[in-house]
């Protein structure tokens, strides 16, 4: 242990527990990377941090805290993004093992590739609520992190968000990525909201623009009536849409708040908001974030929040991005989503729940992280000893399976078809290179700084160190449709894409197709032969045209940014367990019937082993 050099990626929930346990277990040379700073909501489990540390670097504070009880060990913190180019293969090669404590799929895949390239063992882990898992990935001995497809948070078709929501999450995405973005975000951004008003269907004015000196209350009501009243009526006019769907009800301010006096003069005279962070809830005396507000109260919050943004935070308007820790933004989005939900007959939710959905909040407790950290160190020690026969994938369950709360499973062998030849169906006459790079190469394939070649011609390159004329050339290419690139990309063209940092290279065969289904194929292109994640969660950085996802779960009580844990784990469990024996102990199971593997118990050893299942072919247990 003493001689080992360990890299930890992540100094959050798992990271704090892991760093502490590594230090106690005799490790003396630990490097730790984390880009985050400390927030109040971290303090319920990231115990190395205190209230006074809020805003500071997690990696640095964690290091200082551990040095207090182990002053003589070396901990090197990096307040940085692990995807930075300086964390290259050479950097990774210096370590004996890499331990991940991350909370997103994107970074995990990146680290996985670097570890494969550097030939350094990786111990992966994840937790959500009471569930957790630890997996070991050693090149050549076990499958890599990406050998098994990982489900990714959902994204929704644009029309579901703009016209036909059926779940609360759709309303949240509308409120956050369309309405909030339109009112308070970058004005130059494309937005799918209907901006034409009833009276000026031919004019160029944007109804969301507040006229100079327009009374705030009037403006707020105008916006309300436009998005919840007029837009709904417009949508209703299209009979076809509603043939098999419940029709929404338009809602106007006068319907939702008939008794409220309409204040047309001046701004809100409320003094409660003077000292604190502006809050509509405070203004209105709504104290309980767990309470589900009535349509009337939601409407009041909507109008009040909108006014408060203009009254107290005018300078930020035009630059705001939704942040789950921005109280006023959360209030606004909750209210807007609820009013829309009301219109479409979808159940309303409390601010607490809405915040969880809008902010992709992962529910988390200290105990699971502590258990997982212990399991990680146990596996790490085996890896350092080269004890490969004993590597285990460890699962921490909420309900026991065969009396076990902590369940070891032998790792699988590497998957030969990890990156098989890919086929991309796309309209080569109308699709720009930029779209293919964003939606497929960076998103689905997870490349960070890709290079795209057609035969021997380099049509695109990303990264530092480009000559200005090269960069200009690539910028031009991005905006060209595939068929019109200097090296034309048409049916049967083969693209070669590569990321040097990740040491990943693959081929994509292009197939031309004219039409794509807007609902089922919202990206306008389909990638086949891909055994990896299907849809990437596009983070709302304002650059993406298609509507980003915000939550994977329909059940608001179990939102998670990275669901690779629960369903991925469920899938493995399904393969392992005999369905009829254990179906009542699996959580959230839905397709246990597909399980075909058997549990074999060896009397002397009581190890969980897998039968060789002919259907599973490549996946065999470790010899």
């Amino acid at each position, binding site marked *: 242990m003493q001689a080992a050099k360990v890299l930890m990626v992540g100094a959050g929930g798992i990271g704090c527990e892991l760093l502490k346990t590594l230090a106690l277990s005799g490790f003396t040379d630990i490097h730790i990377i984390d880009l985050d700073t400390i927030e109040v909501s971290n303090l319920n489990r990231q115990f190395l941090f205190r209230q006074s540390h809020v805003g500071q670097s997690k990696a640095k504070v964690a290091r200082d805290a551990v040095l207090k009880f182990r002053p003589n060990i070396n901990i090197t913190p990096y307040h940085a993004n692990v995807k930075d180019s300086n964390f290259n293969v050479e950097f990774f090669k210096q370590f004996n093992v890499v331990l991940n404590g991350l909370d997103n799929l994107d970074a995990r895949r990146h680290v996985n590739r670097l570890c494969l390239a550097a030939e350094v063992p990786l111990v992966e882990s994840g937790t959500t609520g009471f569930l957790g898992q630890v997996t070991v990935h050693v090149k050549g001995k076990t499958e890599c992190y990406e050998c098994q497809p990982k489900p990714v948070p959902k994204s929704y078709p644009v029309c579901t968000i703009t016209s036909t929501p059926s779940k609360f999450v759709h309303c949240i995405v509308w409120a956050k990525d369309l309405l909030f973005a339109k009112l308070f975000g970058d004005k130059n951004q494309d937005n799918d909201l209907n901006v034409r008003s009833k009276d000026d269907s031919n004019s160029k004015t944007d109804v969301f623009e507040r006229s100079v000196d327009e009374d705030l209350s009037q403006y707020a009501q105008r916006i309300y009536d436009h998005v919840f009243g007029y837009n709904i009526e417009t949508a209703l006019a299209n009979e076809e849409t509603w043939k098999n769907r419940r029709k929404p009800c338009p809602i106007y301010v006068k319907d939702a708040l008939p008794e409220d006096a309409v204040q047309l003069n001046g701004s809100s005279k409320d003094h409660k908001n003077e000292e604190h962070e502006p809050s509509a809830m405070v203004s209105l005396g709504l104290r309980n974030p767990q309470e589900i507000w009535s349509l009337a109260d939601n409407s009041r919050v909507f109008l009040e929040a909108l006014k408060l943004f203009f009254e107290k935070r005018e300078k930020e308007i035009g630059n705001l991005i939704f942040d789950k820790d921005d109280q006023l933004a959360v209030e606004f989005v909750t209210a807007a989503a609820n009013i829309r939900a009301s219109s479409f007959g979808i159940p309303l939710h409390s601010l607490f729940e809405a915040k969880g959905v809008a902010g992709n909040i992962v*529910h988390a407790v200290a105990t699971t992280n*502590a258990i997982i950290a212990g399991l990680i160190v146990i596996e790490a020690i085996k890896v350092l000893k080269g004890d490969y026969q004993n590597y285990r994938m460890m699962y921490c369950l909420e309900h026991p399976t065969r009396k076990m709360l902590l369940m070891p499973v032998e790792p699988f062998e590497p998957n030969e078809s990890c990156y098989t030849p890919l086929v991309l169906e796309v309209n080569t006459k109308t699709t720009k290179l930029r779209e293919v790079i964003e939606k497929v190469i960076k998103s689905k394939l997870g490349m960070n700084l890709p290079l795209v070649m057609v035969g021997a011609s380099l049509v695109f390159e990303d990264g530092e160190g480009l000559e200005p004329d090269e960069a200009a050339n690539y910028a031009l290419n991005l905006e060209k449709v595939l068929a019109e690139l200097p090296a034309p990309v048409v049916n049967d063209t083969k693209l070669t894409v590569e990321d040097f940092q990740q040491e990943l290279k693959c081929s994509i065969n292009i197939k031309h197709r004219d039409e794509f289904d807007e609902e089922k194929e919202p990206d306008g292109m389909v990638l086949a032969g891909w055994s990896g994640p299907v849809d990437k969660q596009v983070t709302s950085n304002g650059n993406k045209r298609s509507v980003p996802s915000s939550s994977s779960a329909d059940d608001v009580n179990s939102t998670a940014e990275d669901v690779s844990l629960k369903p991925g784990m469920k899938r493995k469990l399904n393969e392992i367990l005999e369905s009829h024996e254990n179906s009542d102990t699996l959580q959230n199971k839905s397709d246990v019937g597909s399980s075909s593997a058997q549990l074999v118990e060896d009397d002397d050893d009581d190890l969980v082993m897998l039968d060789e299942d002919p259907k599973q072919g490549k996946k065999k247990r470790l010899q």
Partner: protein
Amino acid sequence: MDGGGAERELTAQETALYDRQIRVWGVDAQKRLSKAHVLVCGMNGTTIEFCKNIVLAGVGSLSLMDDQTVTEADLNANFLIPPDESIYGGRSLAEVCCESLKDFNPMVQVSVEKGDPSLIDGEFLDKFDIVVVSGASLKTKLLVNDNCRKRSKHIAFYTVDCKDSCGEIFVDLQKHSFIQKKNGGETEQQELTYPSLQEAISVPWNNLPRKTTKLYFAMRVLENYELSEGHSPGKTTLSDIPAVLARVKAVRDKISLNESQVPTALMERLLAAGKKEHPPVCAILGGILGQEVIKSISCKGDPIKNFFYFDAADGKGVIEDIPTPPPCAN
């Protein structure tokens, strides 16, 4: 159990701090936690992990009982003790740990209870809802368990012991009602009745299923050996192994059990362990125990009944229900 008066709402500070865990167990459970009082007897690598967890979770109060003076050996698995003799020298384990634990959550009252667990009973115990005992002799464990059961107030009793890279947790919730979440999302009220520690360790070995975790038997052998020799826990060493094995053999011969039921190798590991604790195993046992206590206080979720074993050698964390309930016991 909870000090009367109207149910108060969580403060804004609590809601902000506990947001992520409220999303796991709900506001109601969080409120119950804030009214719970916990006693821990025996500060070691495992119980401090447990203490960290429940302080972060936001219990009402935590009382620590351990008059032993801090020694350098205690620093091995205990991250609450600053490695500076000028700070810890001459002070009790409870005192030094208390100081560090307070830092983790200013809303939890952490304090020291001077005294000897073998002498606690009666009204003293009524101050608590949860009692955890670790590193104590069998005699002390039985005594405290018995005293908890005698009170009319419902007091949950736990033991936890880590022997190097394996360990045991025992749970006695007496009669415990809780809400169980079913597959479809509906909830159902359940009730369990737990045996006392005395009952749980007095089961004749040949009444137990053959697949029962071997650690159960091994721990009982060690307990009994220590009891009969008057050794304090952890003082039995490898040099005692011949005598211990002879004891095991005698028991086994009487009830015709074979060697694999209580493997020699396992006994040797336990004896060699002494008071040593492997930090990853402390984290695991402390985490599981933390979850159990939270479940018990909140009356939500299936509690362990009634033993939990973890062994890093095979990575399994197993629940044993001893004595084994008869089938269709309803």
